[in-house]
């Protein structure tokens, strides 16, 4: 299931919470849109792993913010970190979005390697459009459905 929603002014919210504004992409705390103060922010526990995998692929990703706590939900459903793609990366290096999504799908596939489980996953991406607005893409389903996301992200950006 794919859902596209209007999103808050992420740039303004980052300023309010004292977070670094990314040049290309960043992992945002899960409750970024609702947290009123920085001490309430939480990363999902997979944030460190996904950040590390993206960094090791030599993709420029803003470091995780120090001092933010992590939340482990102990469910088999993979709750991916909330990733923000800036307009610059979508317009200038869209292939890096493909690589990022492939990294995530490989990691999810690893979690079920050798078992007969289907990996259920929930992904949320924040997309900065070319007009400077922000939209949220929600994806819930299996790994195969991820293939279409880079194209959808590009369309959302260009709209």
């Amino acid at each position, binding site marked *: 299931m794919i859902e596209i929603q209007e999103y808050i002014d992420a740039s303004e919210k980052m300023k309010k919470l004292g977070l670094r504004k990314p040049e290309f992409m960043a992992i945002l705390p899960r409750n970024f849109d609702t947290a009123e103060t920085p001490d309430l922010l*939480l990363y999902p*526990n997979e*944030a*460190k*792993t996904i*950040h*590390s*995998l993206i960094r*090791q692929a030599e993709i420029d990703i803003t470091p*995780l913010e120090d001092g933010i*706590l*992590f*939340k*482990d*939900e*102990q*469910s*088999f*459903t993979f709750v991916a970190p909330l990733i923000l793609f800036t307009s610059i990366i979508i317009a200038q290096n869209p292939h890096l979005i493909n690589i990022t999504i492939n990294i995530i799908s490989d*990691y999810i596939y*690893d*979690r*079920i*390697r*050798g*078992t*007969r489980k289907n990996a*259920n996953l929930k992904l949320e991406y924040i997309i900065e459009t070319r007009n400077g607005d922000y939209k949220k893409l929600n994806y819930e389903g299996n790994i195969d459905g991820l293939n279409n996301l880079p194209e959808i992200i590009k369309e959302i950006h260009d709209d």
Partner: protein
Amino acid sequence: MIKEMDKYKYILDEIGARTKYLYFTRGLEFQEESVDKLDELLKSILKEKEKYVEEKNESMANGLLSIEHMILSQKRLFEMIINLKKDNSDDAWTSLVLAETHIHLAHMAAKGLFSVNDGNIPQFIEGYEKLIFPPQVYNSIEAIYGSSTCSICGEEYGKCNHIKGRAYMGKFCFEQIKDIKEMPAMAIVFEPASKLHRITHSSDDNHNMRDVMTHRISHKESNKLKTKLNKSK
């Protein structure tokens, strides 16, 4: 497969040959003997793995780590059957869940090296889980934590280049959570992170606590529940 791994093919052949005893109806003596044999194989593979670790031969160390977990997976499946035959259904469930974990780890250790022939172990696991055990309900606990370290290098997890679940020189990386700040919620789920966290008892219409596996009344738990209910009246 890496050429050097060929000399351990006899272990995979032994595992394959023992698959015939994974059917429930096979004689208990064959299944118990299989556990002993797998223990022997495990000891020898651990010794061999150490040798490759000392030589800093990561591919071979990880290859043998994969075989180690293949052995453990089949061993756990035999233990599950033995436990069922001895009416120890709780332990049987634990063995089943561990068998699944080990086969997953066998695949992870072999990642990028060779493709694992798992001898249909996942099919046996799925079959036993669905047909032998009643449906289970699980607990899931949320935790909020500040920092975590890498089990391989001891650095803050995420700052180093190790990835949890992957094999490095014959060992798996895992994230060690250091400072749990709070555990805000507990949920009842059907798809848990770990199937070991299951609800073991439930109460019937007469407030008897029954074992989810055997359906037998657990007297100690029932008495506690009845006392509690009487007090609340």
